[in-house]
């Protein structure tokens, strides 16, 4: 695979577990050695450079705070091993702590902090070294929903303010889409697509991307051939499909429906393929086993011509 990340970019590596996104991050950090290929950081070959000499820092999934040190010493750790003077590292660490809104927490032990606070300490500990690239390995994975949303906003704001490159690993497509400038979608060790969130969402290049990023419908090639005469699979977003009277482009049988709050999701059987449709709140929900006719927005049917199609 080939991956280029621009300076100052918020870049997300998105994929299910075991897809190789974390391995990719660990290669950049230097925890793992590539069997072939190379890692280049700011024009310099870093393939054989040990982690402690790379201009990158990592925020770990489990935060990896040192339990025997207090918060201030945790944040100052990188400066301490670099041999900075005690006063200087104290000041820098306190600045980093106030950057993540934890001023005054320096004297506590990691075990006395909540998950969200530990997350911020891990962030401060990495940022205090002023890295050129910050690597984040599912940093929000262990937080509950409300806190996660708050941290997403804060991380994004922090990245804008500091202007350093963030490389962010996540399996949560919503997180990747809402935070990143660009996203790389991973599956089974391969990058399926790289692009801006809007682009990846609207124009998936492979059935995997269509399904994983926002659970789009994937129409098989023969059905697409029937509809528009092109023999390739196509993606069709559930929210772009509408129910219509008899003259629809496709018709299907209702096999299930689920109330989602803001909308209702219908599961249809269309010539043996399952298809989901998102109905707006106002629409009336058809009965189970009834036949419905479908139409969709212009350009909604997106033919996929990605690498593994």
């Amino acid at each position: 695979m080939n991956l280029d990340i621009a300076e100052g970019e918020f870049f997300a590596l998105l994929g299910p577990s075991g897809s190789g996104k974390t391995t990719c991050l660990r290669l950049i950090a230097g925890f793992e050695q590539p069997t072939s290929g190379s890692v280049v950081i700011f024009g310099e070959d870093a393939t054989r450079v040990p982690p402690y000499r790379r201009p990158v820092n990592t925020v770990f999934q489990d935060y990896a705070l040192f339990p025997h040190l207090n918060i201030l010493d945790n944040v100052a750790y990188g400066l301490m091993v670099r041999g900075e003077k005690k006063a200087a590292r104290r000041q820098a660490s306190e600045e980093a702590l106030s950057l993540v809104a934890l001023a005054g927490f320096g004297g506590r032990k990691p075990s006395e902090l909540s998950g969200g606070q530990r997350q911020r300490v891990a962030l401060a500990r990495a940022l205090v070294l002023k890295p050129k690239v910050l690597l984040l390995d599912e940093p929000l994975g262990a937080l509950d929903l409300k806190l996660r949303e708050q941290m997403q906003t804060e991380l994004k704001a922090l990245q804008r303010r500091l202007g350093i490159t963030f490389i962010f690993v996540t399996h949560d497509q919503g997180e990747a889409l809402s935070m990143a400038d660009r996203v790389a979608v991973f599956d089974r060790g391969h990058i399926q697509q790289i692009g801006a969130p809007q682009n990846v969402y609207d124009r998936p290049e492979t059935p995997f991307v269509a399904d994983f990023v926002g659970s789009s419908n994937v129409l098989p090639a023969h059905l697409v051939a029937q509809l528009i005469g092109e023999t390739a699979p196509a993606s069709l977003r559930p929210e772009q499909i509408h129910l219509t009277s008899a003259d629809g482009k496709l018709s299907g049988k209702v096999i299930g429906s689920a109330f989602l709050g803001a909308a209702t999701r219908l599961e249809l059987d269309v010539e043996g393929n399952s298809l989901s449709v998102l109905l707006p709140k106002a629409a009336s929900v058809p009965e189970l086993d009834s036949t419905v006719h479908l139409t969709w927005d212009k350009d909604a049917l997106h033919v996929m011509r990605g690498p593994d199609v």
Partner: protein
Amino acid sequence: MSDTTSAPSRISDAFWRQPTILLLLLVTPPLLWLGIVYLGSLFALLAQSFFSIDEFTGLVRYEFTLKTYAELLRASNFDILIRTIVMASAVTIASAIIAFPIAYYAARYARGRWKAVFYLGIMLPLWSSYLVKVYSWKLILAKEGILNWFFETLYLSWILEAYLAIPVVGGNSLSVSWTGTFLVFVYVWLPFMILPVQAALERVPPSMLEASGDLGASSGQTLRHVILPLALPGIIAGSIFTFSLTMGDYIIPQIVGTSARMIGQAVYQFQGTAGNIPLAAAFAVVPIFVMGIYLTLAKRAGAFDAL
């Protein structure tokens, strides 16, 4: 609810309503054992140390006195204390140094079959009799023993002789020297150091070491600032074993070593042949006292902060 429930189920119901009764029933027997049999005999021993022996009749005088403790400070007795504490410290330090790499390997690298080999290798010596092990060491270290033969075969006897010529640690042969006693102590207690250190290292997540490297620490700095502090509770736990076991042992120094006595031998002789139970008790209090000081210092140094 019917009132025809059987007796066992009514007892079970009562326990469910009053969980404290069940808990009390569960912990009372072990508490009695610990309180009366175990701690009781320990306090009986401590009490003995505050009595003294009548020098004319050789009978114990049951009056409170610190005279017996004062006797510990007599040169011949004080030598025994110093000798034992120095030996216990040396054995503990050597065990920690030897155990650490073994425990580190086992905790971080050994997987599956190799882990089983590790545990077997550590535990196997514990399965055989302690006396047999000590006597086999005598065979290794004796003048006609394996080690001597080995040095002779390699024409290196002069190294061994030069070493044995060193005062204090040397002697006629290794089996009658302090070095011999030290080697056997380290061998016999090593598993008690390896296992707690390994357990402590096992609890250090790999990401902790990666984080240290990521923040710019070299391997040496990671060892010093992360691994050692986190392994320290394990090292302290292991040192409690090696230190107190060495201080109390009277068999090893009797079989392998010089004729100078250690605390364990002194206790054995004073309570047995000499019939001076108060002095034996006072000797036995010393290891307890030393361990108390040691643990207090360790706690103050922050050895248990990572627990």
